[in-house]
């Protein structure tokens, strides 16, 4: 999946691919041993950890220590592990799951909404300062979130928002990359003539946006939503410095806390629950990818072929 993302910023790439060499069609792909081997290695590299995770989620704590990492132990404890994960510490895992969902719905959802509105406006309206905004957005894409975490913490601390869910949600609302993606996508996917036609028919700007532009933007929206969802779902450093109360932890932080219990005097060592919890944590993301795949792929191809 990730390979197709990197191959996608693709307009001039597609042009370069059209070389004068022997033509080949999607039905008769040219074989390339090196690429196949590389691809196989990549698949191994991405799939092996996943297989490891699935296999080890079936083991008890003692099974983990006894057995080879890439094969099953004698005991099959997957169901017990899942039950224990949800009941350990009065079921706090469930609470973390709900927290993560809350952060994703409000944070990633809000970020997508803002990116769609902003991207559309930047693509289809002329106004002074647009070039400056472009520079700002591109610059912002380059700044890693980790670098902003501490200044953000200090600011939120002044506002008295640390240790509340807002401290995680509000910074998640800003997604420069999502904005940039929506901007490029809107510029390609919405013919300006269509907007002019709608305006000429007397539609208001709001109505034009919702009834003409939004349906055309759907594939792009899904793409941005996936990106922001993954970013929010996996966010670790921001909640780490913002939150103290375990009741507001997202899954990432909760699992890391469980894992560090093994380093504590008298602490309960629950690597089996950490592993099972990690497996449960990635399932919703896998489901989201599979479910939204078709929208997402059609979105990536938009604008790459002359119609």
């Amino acid at each position: 999946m990730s390979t197709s993302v990197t191959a996608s910023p693709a307009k001039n790439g597609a042009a370069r691919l059209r070389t004068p060499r022997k033509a080949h069609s999607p039905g008769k792909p040219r074989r390339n041993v090196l690429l196949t081997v590389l691809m196989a290695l990549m698949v191994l590299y991405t799939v092996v950890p996943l297989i490891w995770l699935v296999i080890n989620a079936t083991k008890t704590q003692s099974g983990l220590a006894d057995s080879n990492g890439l094969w099953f132990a004698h005991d099959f404890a997957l169901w017990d592990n899942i039950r224990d994960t949800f009941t350990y510490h009065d079921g706090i895992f469930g609470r973390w799951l709900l927290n993560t969902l809350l952060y994703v719905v409000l944070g990633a959802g809000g970020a997508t909404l803002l990116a769609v509105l902003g991207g559309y406006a930047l693509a289809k309206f002329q106004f002074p300062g647009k070039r400056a905004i472009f520079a700002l957005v591109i610059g912002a894409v380059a700044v890693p979130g980790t670098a902003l975490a501490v200044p953000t913490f200090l600011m939120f601390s002044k506002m008295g928002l640390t240790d509340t869910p807002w401290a995680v949600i509000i910074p998640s609302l800003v997604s420069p990359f999502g904005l940039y993606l929506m901007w490029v996508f809107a510029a390609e996917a919405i013919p300006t003539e269509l907007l002019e036609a709608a305006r000429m028919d007397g539609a208001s700007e709001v109505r034009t946006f919702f009834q003409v532009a939004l349906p055309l933007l759907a594939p792009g929206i899904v793409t941005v939503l996936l990106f922001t969802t993954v970013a929010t779902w996996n966010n670790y450093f921001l909640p780490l410095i913002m939150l103290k109360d375990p009741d507001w932890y997202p899954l990432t932080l909760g699992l890391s806390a469980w894992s560090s219990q093994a380093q504590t005097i008298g602490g309960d060592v629950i690597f089996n629950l950490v592993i099972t919890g990690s497996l449960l944590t990635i399932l919703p993301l896998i489901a989201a990818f599979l479910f939204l795949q078709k929208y997402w792929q059609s979105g990536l191809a938009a604008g790459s072929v002359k119609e």
Partner: protein
Amino acid sequence: MRRTTGRIVRGLALVSALALGATACGGSDDDSDTKAVSAGDLQAALDKGGDITVWAWEPTLKTVAADFQKKYPKVKVNLVSERSGDKHYTALSNAISAGKGVPDVAQVEYFALGQYSLTKGLTDLAPYGADKLASKYTPGPWNAVSDGDKVYGLPMDSGPMALFYNKTVFDKYKIAVPTTWDEYLDAARKLHKADPKAYIANDLGDAGFTTSLLWQAGSRPYKVDGTKVAINFDDAGAKKFETIWQQLIDEKLLAPVSGWTDDWYKGLGDGTIATLATGAWMPANFVTGVPNAKGQWRAAAMPAWTKGDKASAENGGSSLAVPALAKNKELAYAFTEYANSGAGVATRVSEGAFPATKAELESPAFQSKKFDYFDGQEANKIFAESAANVASDWSYLPFQPYANSIFNDTVGKAYVSSTKLADGLKAWQDASVKYGEEQGFTVEK
């Protein structure tokens, strides 16, 4: 003799430091601090009720907090308990310097107490009656929480050291359990020769373990008098440690595994790490972390540096302290006292915590407890004897958490390169001195 003189000097320095402090910040602060809080005041606060927030990861506190709330129904204890170690201290320091969100009670390990007490981050608990509890505790932990007549926390648990060894492995290769560190070195050679995959211990350099071994060997690298600090690893005790450990490193007799990782738990379980010299709290971690090796391990007294010597040391252990910015100090102290000196101790011991109180350590029920994990061994006898043999004149630096954080960049090199342990310790000393001076301590070289 030397110890007595040292104490007088330290006492004098402390008095002058306190006098300076008092002039500097005016009398008002000290008045409220030194005002005694009677048992009646505490009882009144408990009857009135209120909320306290406790930052602690010690797992048995959950039951203690529940019992406490049952006994005093108007008090609500918010136990915030998912974080430990570095992250805990970072959060605590951040809260103290921000002046906001400071807990009423915080778990602070002995090695980190100095950092908070010296910067006036903690409440002196003596006026609340903590000074009268000295005789209840073993000397190691009490020495760690008190400074002159000030008491900065109540000892929650302790870690008198013992040698845990895998009896199955020792029996298999007919190796005798070492009683001195020289014998330990021999055992390490024999074991690794018999099974190249097996090591006597794992060590990639661990600050807490190293300072504990120095403590046991009689080395006293840190001397602390208020803001005057001396750091010197060049003494006879340190030489003893360097000699033995350098040979273990040079002959590759230590498993290259970091403590507390899953590899480590695995090694303890499959016999490739055959001994572990650590605090008496370890059995609880064996039970949950290495369940598959049940019945294989035993406890023994720490190997001695000279034959017949019984000196022991502490490794790990923590206190509950009341930050200076705590909102509800009476309730905070009442809870601390309940958990660490009152009815909470029995609860915590029954759940597997290792006590710091003499009464529990000496009680027949505690001493004759049979450990299923150790195949019925009455291991507490060994631990209690070790607790009684801990020298009480050890002190950590007032910036020990920082010093420990640079351990791997200095001493740690000796474990992974050709740097000698003695040079590593010297580098650690120099870096600690430099930091101390930057922080405004008077560092004597």
